[in-house]
């Protein structure tokens, strides 16, 4: 069998493995070779927190055995990377935190079960901001990750490791998680495709909770087809998640055959402010021109409550997080540090186990839920969230099918550049509205500014991922190699 061509999309790789013109073992070997080549480990880009080459080869061997099955599964032999806050029974699930350092989950997340059932080979767990709290992967307890396109720059966060593994050519597909933009923003920074599904589209069972009403597992792909394939595999109902929707999963890959004629794309003015980096603005406008050429009608629209999204998000997410992280107390798993009695153990474990950003958000979240402040902060934020959601409902009700915006206000920034917490939070300004409204959204590369990748974002109505993929496939085709220039 031949060596693995570098540009093979995930679906094509799987087909080749099924046809036995490539072996899964070779694909896995290629992944590890690529990881070594870019120095994805702790001493280099620090994209990967744990991996086990022998176990990966064993999984690949099993996949090769399955190639001759009557109906070989859709990801057979395809190497994938999983963000370290998604439970896997092999490798560790540390969530980028000391408090779970070395923790091996006794069960697989539903999304991981589905990847495995589809024949995928989990080759590594990727680095991330601790408990998904961050926008740069600088908040990891195990050191920051670096952007493969430009190693002095952040890969974005919190799913920086997964985005980087795809950008560096280690794998074609990776899982990440979204709460405020943690898949789309690193996808934009690294120049890859990143998809956040509708809230409830993908089971959260096994995703270590940060903010339960916002969290979703998302997918990275080297191209749109990779992401579509991955999402098809992991999406769908799950009786173990009460918030997962029953709705059937259409074929997202089929959207490649869709057309944009008759599709109305909205350009929300709030996402194109006066002070937007003009290079990003220009690339977005160029992409919009492509959409018009492809037959879409482009309309100016308004989402008037957009400027309230960041403060709303930064009340609701930390509030839920403060409750979700209470289980990390040293009693049943993870780090335990003895102190003075039970209370001392709780405090010593949590103060040593949590990093600064996590501590800050737990404090903020506890504060906004506490007696006397609940109505003014938490309850108010829930109401404003409903207004933000209503903005989108109104726009979609007026015959708009999709929205197109820049994914981020800036390109990747240098490590250490953003020291003010709220300044860092503003990286989410264009992404967190989709999380608050529960809408599907995806980022794809639309060009470069100063040599750094720029992402453009589509948003669609609830459970209308297919529409989003139609536009993304079409735009990707139209941009061609220009997406990375």
């Amino acid at each position, binding site marked *: 069998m031949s060596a693995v061509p570098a540009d093979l999309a995930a679906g094509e790789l799987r087909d080749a493995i099924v046809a036995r013109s490539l072996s899964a073992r070779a694909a896995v070997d290629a992944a590890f070779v690529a990881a070594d080549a870019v120095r994805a480990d702790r001493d280099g880009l620090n994209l990967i927190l744990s991996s086990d080459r022998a176990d990966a080869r064993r999984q690949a061997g099993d996949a090769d055995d399955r190639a001759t099955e009557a109906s070989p599964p859709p990801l057979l032999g395809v190497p994938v990377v999983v963000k370290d806050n998604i439970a896997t029974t092999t490798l560790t*699930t540390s*969530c980028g935190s000391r408090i779970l350092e070395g923790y091996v989950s006794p069960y697989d997340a539903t999304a991981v079960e589905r990847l495995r059932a589809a024949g995928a080979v989990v080759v590594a767990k990727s680095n991330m901001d601790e408990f998904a709290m961050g926008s740069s992967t600088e908040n990891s307890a195990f050191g920051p990750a670096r952007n493969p396109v430009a190693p002095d720059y952040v890969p974005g966060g919190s799913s920086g490791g997964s985005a980087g593994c795809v950008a560096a050519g280690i794998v074609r597909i990776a899982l990440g998680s979204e709460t405020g933009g943690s898949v789309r923003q690193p996808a934009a920074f690294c120049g890859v495709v990143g998809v956040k599904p509708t809230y409830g589209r993908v089971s959260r069972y096994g995703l270590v*909770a940060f903010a339960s*009403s916002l969290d979703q597992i998302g997918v990275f792909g080297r191209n749109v087809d990779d992401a579509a394939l991955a999402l098809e595999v992991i999406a769908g109902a799950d009786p173990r998640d*009460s918030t997962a929707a029953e709705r059937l999963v259409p074929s997202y890959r089929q959207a490649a055959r869709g057309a944009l004629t008759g599709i109305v794309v909205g350009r929300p003015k709030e996402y194109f402010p006066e002070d937007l980096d003009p290079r990003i603005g220009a690339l977005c406008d160029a992409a919009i021109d492509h959409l018009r050429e492809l037959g879409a009608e482009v309309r100016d629209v308004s989402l008037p409550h957009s400027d309230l999204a960041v403060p709303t998000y930064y009340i609701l997410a930390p509030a839920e997080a403060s*409750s979700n992280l*209470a289980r990390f107390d040293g009693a049943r798993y993870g780090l335990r540090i003895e102190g003075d009695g039970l209370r001392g153990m709780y405090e010593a474990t949590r103060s040593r186990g949590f990093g600064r950003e996590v501590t800050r958000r737990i404090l903020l979240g506890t504060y906004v839920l506490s007696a006397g402040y609940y109505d003014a902060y938490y309850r108010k934020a829930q109401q404003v969230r409903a207004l933000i959601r209503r903005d989108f409902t109104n726009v979609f009700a007026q015959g708009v099918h999709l929205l197109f915006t820049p994914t981020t206000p800036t390109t990747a920034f240098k490590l250490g550049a953003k020291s003010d917490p709220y300044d860092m939070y503003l990286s989410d300004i264009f992404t967190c509205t989709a999380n608050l409204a529960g809408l599907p959204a995806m980022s794809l590369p639309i060009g470069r500014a100063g040599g750094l990748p720029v992402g453009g974002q589509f948003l669609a109505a609830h459970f209308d991922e297919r529409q989003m993929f139609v536009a993304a496939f079409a735009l990707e085709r139209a941009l061609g190699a220009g997406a990375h220039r």
Partner: protein
Amino acid sequence: MTPTLAGRYEMVVGLEVHVQLNTRTKAFCGCSTNFGAPPNANTCPVCLALPGALPVLNAHATELAVRAALALGCTVHTTSVFARKNYFYPDLPKGYQISQFDKPVATGGRVRIGTRADGSPIEIGVTRLHMEEDAGKSIHDRFAGVTAVDLNRAGVPLIEIVSEPDMRSAEEAGAYLRALRQILDYVRVSDLSMEEGSLRVDANVSARLRGEMALGTKTEIKNLNSFSFVERALDAEFARQCAVLERGGVVEQQTMLWDAGAGVVRPARTKEGSHDYRYFPEPDLPPLVLDREVIDAIERALPELPDARRARYRKLYSDLTDYDVGVLTAGVGLGDYFEHVARAHGDAKTAANWILGEVLAVLKTTGQTIDHFTVRPADLAALLDLVRDGTISRTAAKQVFGTMVKTGDPPASIAEREGLFKVTDDASLSTWIDEVCAEHPNEAERFRAGERRLQGVIVGYVMKKSGGRADPARLNQLLAGRTGGGT
């Protein structure tokens, strides 16, 4: 407490009762709820609160909660919301309890605890009934210096029933608890055992001058393991509060623990301030939406409740005394059993006597429950029929019943096997009479000569000789023909 103090002050009591629902699995996961499993044997990622686990609500728990709420006369809401109650404790693995806060599943019920002189009911209001999950068990004295935690109980479904502060004495509190327990027993939602912890009571009590409208500061009493402890603790705490108020002091809001050994109420030794539970709606569980039709169907399927059953028995089985009715309706199983027997046999009073006598005695000595009693009601009715028809004597019936308890066999076959059918044919009876007369010639002679009062003695000898099988009525007839000058 002195009568004057009691006269000046009024006790105000509210009770919070936690009831474990008798589902097979836990509220939010498929772990078994069976009692007595080895520590942490009944656990899974969800109730262990492993990272990434999520709750999924048990349908049967919901049905039982609705049933209990309807039985208490509550309004069941079509939409209710789960909420997180956040605090740290070793037996609370998530660091929060899933409960309900401002949108509980039911509100506004009542429990009747008695009747006034004018016939109007005395009722205690039920403010709300909501669903929540139980915590695990923290055992502080099993190993030195550490607390042992068993999460088998973590996640077992509970309902919490909160009363209005309508009770005015320890007696009323006891009456409320007994009536509440009886209603819940009838609708079969729980084992209701305070010893096993499937029924728990926390009491809130305050004191105020009689005639005052405002409520005094209340204290909460925990660690109450029986209804009588509840009553005693209330009296003790009320006395303490009255003494404080009499001195001109202020009652501190605090939690008290009942010390059964010493018979006193003590403040709980805790450095915790008042708790800030930071309730917010549970984001992992969408609102619980119940169809009005489903709620109505559960209401229609409610069994007859205690008050209604008592009223019906008094009317329908007018031979029964109030005492009879009281005992027969104490538990739903006994009343069901009684009615089955009464209907099959046709005589309620006889059925009641047997059940209140023989059946209850046997249940006590064998430790069986009426729901799993070896004697099926149809068989007991058949036994009573045999007695009424004269086929076996009362004494024989008691023996047959004893065998029925051991074997569960129907009475006729036992009577046949043990040869207990009454003997009524003249030939056998005459043979026995002759044998008795031969064995007791003196009395036989005097009876033949006309001493009629010896007839009973002779009947007794024949009954003994026949092992109780001789039919006394026919015996007497035969003997009557042998006295007074005849042969």
